[in-house]
């Protein structure tokens, strides 16, 4: 009786985890690009930045596949709309990483005033590390969501999930602070900076902070999935 094979539909959670994996890889590749930027290896930086673009495309493809398979015919333990919105947010993490990569490709920052160079670079690197952390935590959160369902919404697993969500919110807050600090530095020195350079630096910071914003949005959606 083939009914068993049809009655149980394919769960969207394994593909969601796969998507999160690719998103994490996208952000990690961006960090490598920024490290190359930091060292002044612009050729390597451009190569990594282009790879970020490819990975983002790949994530998009997985997203489309999940969307197509998540028809309203499925009866699931979590709300279908919540899953779809979560997926959208998770995908936007990769989009944000791609945006940073795009700015990296626009120009080389070799004309930053010497006295600012160190501060600017250390702040950007810090933000990049934090955004990786955010993407990693989102990956952990969706893996944990799978466990929450596996345990039949066990309290212990839900608690652990809330801890991860809180961590993501913490990271987002930290990046926001770094972003503000970065903006202050740029504007304080605006008279000495060429406008193009200012815009370039500000946008790298902004897009990096967007990564954690999207991570936070994704975490919010996971919270909603648990309170059906």
């Amino acid at each position, binding site marked *: *009786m*083939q*009914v*068993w*094979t*049809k*009655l*149980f*539909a*394919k*769960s*969207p*959670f394994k593909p969601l985890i796969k998507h999160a994996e690719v998103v994490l890889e996208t952000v990690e590749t961006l960090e490598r690009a920024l490290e190359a930027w930091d060292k002044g290896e612009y050729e390597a930086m451009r190569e990594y930045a282009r790879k970020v673009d490819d990975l983002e495309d790949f994530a998009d493809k997985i997203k489309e596949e999940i969307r197509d398979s998540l028809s*309203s*015919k*499925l*009866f*699931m*333990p*979590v709300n279908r709309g919540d899953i779809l919105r979560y997926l959208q947010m998770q995908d936007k993490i990769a989009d944000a990483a791609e945006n940073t990569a795009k700015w990296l490709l626009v120009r080389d920052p070799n004309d930053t005033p010497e006295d600012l160079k160190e501060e600017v670079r250390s702040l950007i690197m810090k933000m990049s590390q934090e955004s990786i952390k955010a993407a990693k935590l989102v990956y952990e959160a969706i893996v944990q969501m799978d*466990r929450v*369902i*596996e*345990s*039949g*919404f*066990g*309290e*212990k*697993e839900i608690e652990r999930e809330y801890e991860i969500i809180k961590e993501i919110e913490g990271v987002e807050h930290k990046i926001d602070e770094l972003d503000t600090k970065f903006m202050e530095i740029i504007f304080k020195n605006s008279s000495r900076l060429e406008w193009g350079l200012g815009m370039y630096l500000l946008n790298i910071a902004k897009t990096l902070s967007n990564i954690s914003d999207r991570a936070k949005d994704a975490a919010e959606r996971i919270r909603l999935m648990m309170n*059906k």
Partner: protein
Amino acid sequence: MIELLSDPWLFITIAVGLFMAWAIGANDAANSMSTAVGAGAITPKQAVIIAGVLEFTGAYLFGKSVTETVRKGIIDASQISDPNVIVYGSIAALLAASLWLLFASKFGLPVSTTHSIIGGIVGYGMVYAGTSIVNWGKMAQVVASWILSPIFGAIVAFVVIKLVSKTILQQKDPIESAKKWAPVWIGLAFVVIGSMFYIKVMHGKSLFIAVSRYGLAAGIGAFLVSFALLRRNFKATDPYWGAEAIFRKVQVLTSAYVALSHGANDVANAVGPVAAVYAVATMGLAGMKVPVPRWILAMGGLGIAIGVATYGYKVMETVGRKITELTNTRGFSIDFSAATVVLVASWLGLPISTTHTVVGAVIGVGLARGVKAINKDIVKDIVISWFVTVPVAAIIAGIVFKILMIVG
């Protein structure tokens, strides 16, 4: 027996009866093993062998040796005076039911074999004597079972999966809790299985005897054995995997039981009409109840076993490859709930279909947020197939019967 086969009508009936038995094996029997195969407890090949042997054993050793000529008294046999009607009617009913089962198997719809044969009998009965021959009270019970079976199945499965996850999966240390609670659940499952063995396989009547003599003995035995085994050799690192591993073993036993009782019970759907024709051929009369010779039971059992081996194999292979969403605890909860519902229902005298109860139980586990995804469209198709089983089988049987009456 040789001279009996020279009677062309008896020969035809036996052939159609074998076809029906084969269709039962193809549609239903794979059923008993599919949760175990789906959850990866046994391979499809093992499942086919276990199911084939147990279905045959159930049918041959425990099939009812006396059967009603018209299943469950759905039509009034005393209104049929012409023995030829029994012969043609039985062939028509068997043919209609097996064709419908074949169609349902093709589309993967789990329909009740009992309801198929009931439809066939009602069909020829109505063509012969009009609506008055049908026992509408019994018919209402059949209709009620379409609604009751899945609802009870769903409610019990919902409660069972919740309790299993509360006691095991949601505990601080699932492995420790599994060691403590799994024997309790296994014991409970065997209380049900032991009792069911008496009622379904040995065809006992009293639930009290069933539970006190068979159920409790099996339950306590299973509890002690599983308790000891879990204490002695149980290693697991991942808590969920560990808990699942325990239920994996139990599932093989519950499935084996389902196959045995299915053989014991459902063989009647194929051999009942054959026995009726046999009675006409040997004694020349049409009675309400007739004895079923052993060789007819063996034939039915063989037919079911062949159905499992030929068609069931394909089904179980797909099941093994495709169902990844059914864990052992979920599979156990479905099996346990379905068995409990059928046991309690047979005690209360409620008309319950095992097939329908199992589907209900799957939905119940889904409602308890225990399964990651269930296909709603398939559920709809299944429910529709239940409602059309009796009418479709009745119409086909009616047409075949009419033709046989004209040419016969």
